[in-house]
């Protein structure tokens, strides 16, 4: 059981590394830029895959942490210049923010759809607040927030400590892929650790976990915070990638999009949502170049068809196709085991 998961992990890591190494060799600069964006969105999807798929926390406002990080990077890099501190700050701020919200909500035993709506509200509040900072009076030191227009044209990443060595598209792509693979592996390790199994247990049955002496409120807060940190990382990378931030990062579309990615990729897996994000982002990019019909219409239609054909999401479906036979067998074994238990119980 655990071996399978490991080989799966290795497979995913292998593929990702191959992509990271090969892409810049075989494709031109533009596609490297596109793929960087895909990597960033995959990382973003990964954060929700963890929070929702493993923590069992439906967070409808994951984009709040993504956008917050992007804004923190933009504002602080304009003020500081050298990009290392701003980058770290950009990950730190949403993490702390999430820890506070999480503690507030989970210790109040808010959960399920109610938590989802609260997080959505948080995003929308950020949207309306940041949108209304058009005037010159809204600025953080040197950085003017600039309302709907957002901030653009700020510095991308540079080599730590050496503010003249600004990273080009290819280097940035390596950075994105490194963080993506890093986070994926880190989460896999976390899941196989003692804590990781407790996390899954809490998702499976919070009441039982409580009765066994686990503080689900703390567990949930912690899981949520980790997720926010990863989303923050993605957001910071996004700001670096596009060198622009604006309130659309906090709008309903963005909030829903990441959820769609996760479901399309497959809830309850880490690799699936990454695939989902890449696939859907790429689809949108490709559809934007055709003039046959309204893009939104086609996109929506494809989504519907997809769910009808691939209910469990891409990744689990693939897994099932691979192990259909063995699965049928295991169910048979399961029955035998059931009998064994009752025998065993009477045996002694």
């Amino acid at each position, binding site marked *: 059981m655990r071996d399978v998961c490991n080989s799966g992990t290795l497979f995913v890591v292998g593929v990702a590394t191959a992509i990271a190494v090969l892409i810049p060799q075989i494709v031109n600069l533009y596609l490297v830029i596109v793929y960087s964006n895909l990597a960033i969105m995959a990382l973003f999807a990964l954060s929700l895959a963890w929070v929702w798929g493993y923590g069992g926390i439906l967070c409808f406002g994951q984009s709040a942490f993504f956008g917050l990080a992007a804004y923190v990077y933009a504002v602080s890099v304009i003020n500081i210049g050298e990009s290392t501190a701003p980058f770290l700050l950009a990950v730190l701020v949403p993490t702390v923010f999430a820890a506070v919200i999480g503690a507030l909500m989970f210790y109040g035993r808010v959960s399920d759809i109610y938590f989802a709506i609260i997080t959505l509200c948080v995003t929308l509040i950020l949207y309306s607040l940041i949108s209304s900072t058009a005037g010159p009076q809204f600025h953080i030191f040197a950085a003017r927030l600039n309302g709907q227009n957002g901030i653009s044209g700020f510095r991308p990443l540079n080599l730590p400590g050496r503010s003249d060595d600004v990273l080009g598209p290819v280097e940035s792509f390596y950075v994105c892929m490194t963080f993506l693979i890093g986070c994926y592996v880190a989460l896999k390790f976390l899941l196989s650790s003692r804590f990781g199994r407790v996390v899954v247990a809490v998702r499976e049955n919070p009441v039982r976990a409580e009765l066994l002496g686990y503080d689900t409120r703390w567990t949930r807060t912690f899981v949520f915070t980790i997720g926010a940190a990863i989303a923050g990382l993605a957001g910071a990378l996004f700001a670096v990638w596009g060198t622009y931030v604006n309130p659309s990062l906090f709008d309903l579309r963005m909030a829903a999009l990441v959820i769609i990615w996760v479901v399309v990729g497959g809830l309850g897996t880490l690799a699936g949502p990454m695939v989902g994000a890449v696939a859907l982002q790429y689809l949108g990019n490709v559809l934007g170049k055709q003039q046959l019909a309204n893009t939104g219409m086609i996109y929506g239609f494809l989504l519907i068809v997809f769910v009808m054909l691939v209910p469990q999401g891409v990744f689990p479906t693939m897994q099932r196709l691979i192990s259909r036979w063995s699965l049928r067998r295991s169910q048979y074994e399961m029955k035998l085991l059931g009998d064994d238990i*009752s025998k065993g119980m009477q045996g002694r």
Partner: protein
Amino acid sequence: MTVGAPLLETQALTKRFGGVLAIDRIDFSVEPRELRCVIGPNGAGKSSFFKCLTGLARATSGRVLFMGQDITRADPCHIARLGIATKTQVPNVFDGLSVRENIWIAANRHSISGVQAMKASENTIQRLGLSTAANAVVGQLAHGARQWVELAMIVVANPKLVLLDEPTAGMSGAEIFRVEKLLNELKSTATIIVVEHDVKFIRRIASHVTVLHNGSILIEGPVATVLSDTRVRDVYLGRHSVT
């Protein structure tokens, strides 16, 4: 009846759900190493009483003392950490996980390392004859088997106090016999409170019985006397109503 401080004690414990008075000023106590049965017709307040003890429900008034410590307002996880293990009425396990993982989770809470937890859970798996099923996903097991896994999760936690809500529900005769043996083993290390309907089973395991009726204690005492008491029979037959 042994002397000394009670392990668990409730003082005028009361719980209302909305307008309904589920349990009404219950004064209850068990001694260390005792196996106490709590019986009563449906709606007598047995489950509510348990909920208040485990922290799943907050008592409206009154106190719950465990080894002299007030746990009335404590959270379920903190109560559990004091050494109170619970089996709820319906099998309450991690359906998505394997038998081994279920038991490991239970052991892990108070083990210093994952390895130690693994050892503890393996022992329990052996002891309860679950080894053949160790990798089965609990959700796919039969009702009785899942109850059994839940009991294993209690055993591995080696608790001071065990609360069992209808441990034999949906079990075959042989399985019930098995549970009885397990309880007798547990009794040597822990205090046990069992909610049960099966009178034969009660006679076999318990020395003392508490009868709940309409949310308060109707009668309490040795099995024989209590079960032969007319009021108890009336209550079960629904003739009697305490005023």
